[in-house]
């Protein structure tokens, strides 16, 4: 793994902050992208102080797809690695009551991320190198009643990443799909999650490091989720539709 810049899209999230720290510790220049990115000035200073790497801040709106091409052109350097940590969990019960509330979840979690990764994919392919990392979710493995709007968006995102990986195989561009199970973040703060299944944001960051180093395609965090999802996938539909997971 060379020490080229890493672009972190959605830099405000807990997982993104953990990724920034891990890669900065290795010496990668960091490009932090988020809405209202000026707020992240303290994070920039923190990374520079701790690790002595150059850090740049970039305003980025995942929903403004027309601006994605100019956004990439405007980066100081085309990054070596790009991680998309953008998603919107939304409120499933609200989306049921008012279907229009589901739209922003789908756009922020699938459409927007797919758009920016598509732009980056073209640039990386033209260059002949690079790594694209999409943080999807086990929720996308199979739609279930408690979060299918978010799950559907993640399912679409996972398929998009898989398609990119297929297209870019052999071109020198690596595409990694990260499938976290439960992670202890702001998004899951109020929920009562089983401790053994719940990862710290830093575990996701470490898994990404390992995936890039070893050339892995699909990684689960924590690894036990690979087993859990294998079982979930195998349940016949007549059985699955009656579960309350």
């Amino acid at each position, binding site marked *: 793994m060379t020490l080229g810049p890493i672009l972190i899209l959605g830099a405000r999230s*807990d997982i993104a902050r953990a990724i920034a720290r891990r890669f900065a510790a290795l010496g990668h220049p960091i490009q932090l992208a988020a809405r209202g990115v000026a707020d992240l000035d*303290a*994070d920039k*200073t*923190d990374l520079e*102080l*701790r690790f002595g790497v150059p850090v740049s801040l970039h305003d980025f709106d995942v929903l403004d797809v027309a601006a994605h091409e100019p956004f990439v052109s405007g980066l100081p350097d085309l990054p070596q690695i790009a991680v998309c940590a953008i998603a919107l969990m939304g409120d499933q019960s609200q989306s049921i009551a008012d279907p229009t509330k589901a739209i922003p979840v789908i756009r922020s979690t699938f459409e927007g991320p797919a758009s920016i990764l598509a732009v980056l994919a073209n640039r990386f392919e033209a260059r002949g190198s690079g790594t694209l990392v999409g943080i999807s979710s086990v929720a996308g493995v199979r739609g279930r009643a408690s979060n299918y709007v978010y799950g559907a968006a993640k399912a679409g995102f996972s398929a998009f990443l898989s398609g990119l990986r297929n297209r870019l195989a052999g071109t020198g561009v690596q595409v990694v799909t990260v499938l976290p199970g439960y992670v202890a973040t*702001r998004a899951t*703060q109020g929920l009562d999650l089983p401790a053994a299944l719940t990862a710290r944001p830093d575990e996701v960051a470490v898994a990404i490091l390992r995936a890039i180093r070893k050339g892995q395609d699909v990684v689960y965090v924590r690894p036990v989720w690979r087993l859990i999802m294998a079982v979930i996938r195998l349940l016949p539909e007549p059985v699955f539709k009656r579960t309350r997971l």
Partner: protein
Amino acid sequence: MILSGWGRFPRHDARLFTPRGDVALRDLVLSKDSLIARGAGLAYGDSAINPAATVDMRQFDRMLAFDPQQGQLVAEAGVTLGDVIATFLPRGWFPKVTPGTKCVTLGGAIAADVHGKNHHITGSFRSCVDWIDVMLPDGEITRCDRSHDPDLFDHTLGGMGLTGVILRAAIRLMPVESGWIQQETITCADLATTFAVFADRADADYSVAWVDCLSRGTATGRSVVLLGQHARRGDLPASLAARPFDTPQRRRRSVRFDLPSWTLNRASVGLFNALYFRRGQQSAGISLVDWDRFFYPLDALEGWNRIYGRNGLVQFQCVLPPEQAMSGLTTLLAAIAQSGEAPFLSVLKRMGGQQGALSFPMDGYTLAMDFAARAGTLALLDRLDRIVQDHGGRFYLAKDARMSPAVLAATDARAAAFCAWRDARGMRGKFRSAQSERLNL
């Protein structure tokens, strides 16, 4: 969620909130009737627990600025001393004052006004704090120091989080030439010898005595004294001098599950003490030790509190004035010997004078001991409280898990004034912990 301190005693079911940013914190402070901030949760008792609202400050973990001329670091309260060392030791800086674990947050270090093995020379954590940003009950943030709102500064250092939520602080690091410590080991056959060594070697930057609290008769209070100085580059052998801040990475072991509660008893602790004392005799003299091993020997064993079993442990830490220390310690050791209880890891340190509205240290000697949390040991601790009281000593709130308000009032006249001050500033309703409720602080 069930929260406790490092001693895992007592435990409370508490609502835990993890704000990210000043705005979210302000919302919490304004919307909750009462709350207490929590850092790494390494106080032994219930200082950082409020069942209604405990505020986890560890997302405030950014370093904000460093001035290499003065060695001043500005950082958010959730930054740990371990982070500070990892970042700045390679550049030749080390914390001026450090407690026995590097996992404490800066906010916690300030709230407890922690001390280390150099209190008689450098003082408590207070001596390295330039200013503190505190969020008050109305959600407003005040930057206090020795000249601006000095009362708030005075009461926040050692104030156990009861004056407000600590957000940021500026602390001074001290320059060091290497990551190594010149350690001298001296074994002392009894308590009198231990005191003599402390008096004789007051020149040492760092000093601590591990005391065998189970030995009786003429060997009462036998100890292994460790003295330390930061090694200069010239003190290092050529192999280390080339990279003076490169120290070996210790493999961290962990205690993954609770041991049975009878693991630490008179026999096992007695055996450990005998072996430790013998090892002290064998390694008497001067050696070079890395900073992690000298300052944080217990950090190498993750979850060592599990050795005490599911019911946890209770720490007893008092400080006695110099003229009463010999008599007080002798009486304490006699009471312990008589009880049949077995304190583990007993540590004695010299202390110097101290400022502050509620900070623990005072000129004299401090003894800290761990006991398994059992009915027998709790009863013993009540008797030990009395002995400390009779000898003019007082207790460390960061270690306390079971003291009564009567004992606090009898041993620390400042407590009532601290409480009244909090009242006057409108803090008493808003900032409360299970400990402050128990102690009427």
